[in-house]
């Protein structure tokens, strides 16, 4: 069992204030972008009646999925009793809350009427998976909060494993819910798939671990320390397997669709002649975001810290690209209402829709990332989240 004495809050340092300032500026830019979108209306974004969810959703989904995955390290320590992961357990739980906060902030600020948040909290349609997700997100915050309390309070440490198990189950359900937001869209070929839920679960493992590594290393740098190399190597290998896992389910999703003749045009679009979407899929999601990091993470010769940081960064870039191709690519492809007919209309039926994100919506999306980092930095300043020294001797 861990003792709080081995953890500390981060003291003021140049690095701390530098990163805080950068995160603060990005968050502020996000707020300005959101304010512009809300006061002028969504026409200032690239979104339209054809592409109704744009880049803010890409960042929001990325952050929400990563949030549940960020809890991995704590889960491995508590649920699977791997003590060597315990030094990062508190930080991993804090990251989970911070990333979810960032994602939800983007989601709310992208609403047409964010001022009606209270309506969303008081009117529920329980048949809506979206409504269920609201409960899942709030519940996740609550359970992870309790989980942190169990970890922080020595008298409560004995309950850590039990609450950790509850949080682990909750996070699996949460990501199932997030995947189902898309999987339940029966009318859209790109999303209507039972693979979405497990795909999102594996995506969360990969995205969350990559961000835990990157933000974890950043915090250690701020604190004038380095992550325990042994633990870093364990996370490196774990991330490698998660990246392969995501690639496997992406392949299953596309192979399933390729088997169904009705989906061939969609697959032709994404995989062959979809322009920017095809380029992003093969060039960024698969090559840079999957193959290169898989090699860097799984081959022993690339075990140095620099390669690990590069690989984790590439996983994040690939992850954002994957969500972009999925959400935007899935919407720009036209709905097929009249099979066997060529279709034209004033409402862009039958054509690939245009979408170019505007600066305001990019700022809002990035603002969510900034907010997540800011929440993390505030957390580590107030409470002892960071281990004093990252060695295996820190545990009981």
């Amino acid at each position, binding site marked *: 069992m861990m003792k709080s004495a081995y953890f500390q809050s981060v003291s003021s340092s140049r690095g701390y204030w530098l990163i805080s300032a950068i995160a603060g500026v990005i968050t502020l830019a996000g707020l300005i972008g959101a304010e512009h979108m809300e006061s002028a209306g969504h*026409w200032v974004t690239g979104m339209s009646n054809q592409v109704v969810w744009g880049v803010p959703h890409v960042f929001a989904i990325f952050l929400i999925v990563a949030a549940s995955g960020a809890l991995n390290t704590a889960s491995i320590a508590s649920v699977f009793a791997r003590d060597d992961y315990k030094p990062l357990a508190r930080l991993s739980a804090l990251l989970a809350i911070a990333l979810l906060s960032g994602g939800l902030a983007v989601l709310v600020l992208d*609403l*047409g*009427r964010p001022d009606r948040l209270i*309506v969303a909290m008081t009117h529920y*349609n329980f048949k809506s998976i*979206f409504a269920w997700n609201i409960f899942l997100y709030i519940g996740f915050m609550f359970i992870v909060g309790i989980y942190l309390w169990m970890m922080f309070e020595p008298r409560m440490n004995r309950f850590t494993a039990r609450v950790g198990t509850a949080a682990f189950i909750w996070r699996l359900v949460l990501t199932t819910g997030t995947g189902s937001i898309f999987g339940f869209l029966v009318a859209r070929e790109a999303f209507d798939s039972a693979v979405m839920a497990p795909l999102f679960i594996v995506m969360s493992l990969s995205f969350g671990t990559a961000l835990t590594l990157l933000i974890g290393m950043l915090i250690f740098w701020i604190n004038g320390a380095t992550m325990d190399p042994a633990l870093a190597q364990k996370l490196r290998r774990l991330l490698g397997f998660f990246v392969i896992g995501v690639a496997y389910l992406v392949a299953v999703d596309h192979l399933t669709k390729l088997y169904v003749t009705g989906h061939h045009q969609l697959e032709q679009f994404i995989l062959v002649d979809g322009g920017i979407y095809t380029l992003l899929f093969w060039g960024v999601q698969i090559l840079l975001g999957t193959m290169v990091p898989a090699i860097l993470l799984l081959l022993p010769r690339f075990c140095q810290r620099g390669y690990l940081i590069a690989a984790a960064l590439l996983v994040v870039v690939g992850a954002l690209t994957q969500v972009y191709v999925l959400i935007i690519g899935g919407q720009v492809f036209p709905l097929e209402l009249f099979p066997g007919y060529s279709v034209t209309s004033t*409402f862009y039926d039958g054509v690939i*829709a245009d979408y170019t994100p505007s600066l305001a919506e990019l700022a809002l999306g990035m603002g969510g990332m900034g907010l997540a980092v800011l929440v993390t930095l505030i957390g580590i300043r107030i409470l002892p989240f960071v281990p004093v020294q990252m060695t295996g001797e820190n545990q009981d």
Partner: protein
Amino acid sequence: MTALAATQRARLNASASRPESIVMDMKNSSPASPRRTFFTQASAGVALLALAPGVRLVDLALARAQDEPASAAQRWGLLVDVDRCVSGCDACVSACNTEHGLGDSERPQTDAQWIRKVDLVDNNTGRQLSLPLMCQHCEEPPCVDVCPTGASFRRADGIVLVDKHTCIGCRYCMMACPYKARSFIHEDLTGQKTHAPRGKGVVESCTLCVHRVDRDESPACVEACTDAGREALVFGDINDRNDPLATQLAETTTRELRADLKLNTAVRYRGL
């Protein structure tokens, strides 16, 4: 019912008294003398004349008052006769835009369109078709299922609407609609009609001219189509077997769009 519906009903009544129907009736009846037949029919006629005003009164008594809630006894719907719809004619679209105050912001990708004309070309035969497409007022609407706040709802009489006070603008209904029938309001609006409350940041779609239906009138698109001499749109109550719409649906082969989703739409297409 509307004047248009009354005309359609009169046409149907006329067709019901065709000689073939009398022959069919006689085939099924037992042999009788001409005099007895005459007296029987004359008595039936007198009885009908005596009862008809009463039946009409019952009809009037059943008509819904303005302050009464919509009833599931009715289900409003539309039949689109694709063979009568002409490419290039957008009378229905213009009428809808005028009726609900839908404007043109010179940004067509974000402009609201409650009804649109779709031109089709059969990939195999080259046959060209044109038809209007709008909210299909599904019996099992996906937009209602996914709406987190319940702002998207289906009225008892089958009209699918958006409660503009509880819509938070999440646009999940637009993702879920198989017909791309919904529009999000991307900018500030001015000069809205009192019967069509609209505003920035919420989602909207065809209301089947619910304000007109509640006044016992046809939707604006149907009226405009008739005025344009096309008569490609028939509006009525699917549940009322005597309604021209229900009769035509019963007599001809019609199709619902994305029938594979089993949404049981209230808008049906003939000739597609």
